[in-house]
């Protein structure tokens, strides 16, 4: 087979964005995806922010199969027998262009792959890349099954456990403390029920997050996103925390318990499960970022560790898309120069450094170490719920002054030495 210009390994958002932006240029581009189709194996909680990436592929977003645009945000602190919820309904979020949407990857990525194909790039599913061709210290192609595919440049878009980045010597082997694991179910529910239960109209959507007792003190939380006719429900838990869990328990059971909690049960009642998945999430951030390029190779998306776990929201899709686009820019430039060496591809990192992507990762570089504090997940949610409950409680005894109840409780549970230290630690986020 003739030599290809660009082989992109992984047909997720990062790989497809890169391909989309290379299409139509004087380049032969190939995307290899190991799943049955793009999106078949990809897991996302559910929300994409368009703000940072809208300008990259303006035409694409117009007809994209998003689910609902988010106009409502809620956060519930879960304690043993109570919970406290904060909720935001935003008029601003309900104005075009909408800032964020819920999304189902099996639908979205598959559609995206079709768009890429329409632009003349071959996206080939059922192709797992299982090796790199090395030539004199540079990456010169990939191996899939019995085929060798020679290429000028390889884009590693193969997701969180990137085997290519490791093979190319750009990143260290897997270390559990840099990853979390997510479990997710998609539950089918009629449009009417969703709109009714969550107080939504038309295509309005809700992003709903949970922290507290549901993770049994482990770093992580739960999420619920409303789609057009289904609900994405899941949990994210740090692998480190799971490894330290006492007594050990099968984590997927936590999701079952979460579903049984009164907060969730009524929201999903009558729904039918249509999809269950588990997937790793990168949490390492800036500190464990691999080298982003080398001779004949670039790394994009989750493969490059471009993810942010901020307490309960996980962000990765915008980074995947942005890095894919920037990799495409760097490749176009390299093609003009006819030089795919590391020196030439270094332009990719320049682009990233000047973009929101590496700036944000830098800003939030300490988040994770701060969040590793289990008190955020057991002590504080419980304390806040208890206090709120006390304030609202009236029984046969004369009610004490609210301010003194609050003061005493706050002093005891939150504004003590430890608490002040914890709160001060948040300054670094």
């Amino acid at each position, binding site marked *: *087979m003739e030599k290809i210009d660009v082989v992109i390994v992984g047909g997720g958002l990062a790989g497809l964005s890169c391909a989309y932006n290379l299409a139509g240029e004087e380049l032969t581009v*190939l995307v*290899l995806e190991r799943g049955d*189709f793009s999106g*078949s194996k990809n897991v996302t909680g559910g929300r994409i922010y368009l703000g940072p990436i809208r300008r990259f592929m303006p035409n694409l977003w117009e007809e994209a199969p998003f689910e609902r645009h988010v106009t409502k945000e809620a956060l519930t602190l879960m304690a043993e027998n109570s919970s406290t919820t904060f909720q935001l309904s935003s008029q601003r979020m309900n104005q075009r262009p909408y800032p964020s949407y819920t999304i189902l990857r*099996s*639908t979205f990525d*598959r*559609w995206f792959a*079709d768009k890429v194909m329409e632009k003349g790039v*071959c996206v*080939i599913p*059922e*192709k797992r890349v299982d090796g790199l061709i090395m030539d004199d210290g540079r990456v010169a192609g990939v191996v*899939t*099954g*019995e*085929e060798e*595919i020679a290429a000028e440049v390889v884009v590693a878009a193969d997701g969180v456990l990137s085997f290519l980045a490791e093979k190319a010597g750009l990143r260290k082997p897997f270390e559990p403390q840099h990853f979390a694991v997510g479990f997710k179910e998609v539950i089918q529910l009629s449009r009417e029920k969703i709109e009714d239960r969550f107080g939504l109209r038309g295509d309005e959507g809700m992003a709903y997050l949970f922290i507290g007792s549901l993770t049994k003190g482990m770093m992580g939380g739960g999420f619920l996103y409303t789609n057009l006719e289904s609900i994405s429900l899941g949990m994210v838990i740090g692998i480190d925390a799971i490894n330290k869990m006492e007594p050990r328990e099968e984590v997927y059971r936590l999701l079952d318990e979460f579903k049984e909690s009164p907060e969730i049960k009524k929201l999903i009642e*009558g729904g039918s499960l249509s999809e269950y998945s588990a997937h790793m999430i990168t949490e390492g951030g800036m500190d464990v970022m691999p080298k982003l390029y080398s001779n004949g190779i670039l790394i994009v998306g989750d493969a490059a560790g471009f993810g942010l776990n901020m307490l309960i929201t996980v962000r990765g899709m915008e980074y995947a898309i942005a890095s894919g686009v920037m990799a495409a820019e760097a490749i176009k430039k390299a093609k003009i120069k006819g030089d795919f060496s590391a020196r030439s591809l270094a332009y990719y990192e320049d682009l990233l450094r000047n973009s929101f992507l590496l700036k944000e990762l830098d800003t939030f570089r300490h988040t994770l170490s701060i969040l590793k504090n289990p008190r955020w997940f057991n002590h504080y949610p419980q304390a806040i719920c208890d206090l709120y409950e006390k304030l609202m409680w009236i029984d046969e005894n004369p009610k004490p002054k609210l301010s003194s109840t609050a003061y005493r409780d706050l002093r005891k549970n939150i504004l003590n030495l430890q608490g002040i230290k914890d709160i001060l630690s948040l300054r670094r986020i």
Partner: protein
Amino acid sequence: MDILVLVKQVPDTEAIIRAQSDTELDIENKYSLNFFDEFAVEEALRIKEKLGSGKVAVITLGSKKAVDALRRGIAMGADEAFQIEDPALEEIDGYATAKTLAKFIESQGYDVILCGKQAIDDDSGAVGPALAQFLGIPYLTSIVELKIAADKKEARAAREIEGGTEIITCPLPALFTAQKGLNEPRIPQVAGVMKAMKAQIQKFDLKALGLSPEDIRPKTKILKFYPPGKRPPVKMIEEEFPKNVEVLVKILREQEKAI
């Protein structure tokens, strides 16, 4: 040996499909080559490879998406691709499909025709036998094994019937419909897919086949589509073991009268 394979692009098993109105379906945009047709293509390629000569052509009747079925066939290794496309063919039944395909195939040389046991959209399994009828050739459905005799004049096939298997012989040319178990379809190589992207597809419309819309008027009509009746929600039997087993047996006997 010349082998023709019928292929059809259909919504895959993942696609959400709903009745939108009495006459219209809402089909999620997830399509793939019909599951059973993959076995048919694979078998054709194996016959050709075994004999060391011959030609495999893939044929489809349908518009736009149908091309993807042909491309998949070529990517797997087929030599030629034919598409029969005409606005008048949009809403036809198995009878008309077979009749149109027969008209085209009459003008082709062939020794073997392979197709799927059934298309997983209409789930009919009608086109194969009907096509054989129009062509006046013998056919065997749901085969799980196929051997072509050395003289290329006869085939021996195995098919699954209720409670057993039958071994049958028939003279060629003949038509066979493929059931799972016939073979393990290959996954196209990257080189094959690249070739398929560029492949030339030969197109024919009704006029080119010498047919008029009158000739292909369907014999059946779908009066309406509707969703399957919903099962009532599951009743979980929560009692501890072994009480739960007793409860279940009681329900099945007394309430459901199933035993």
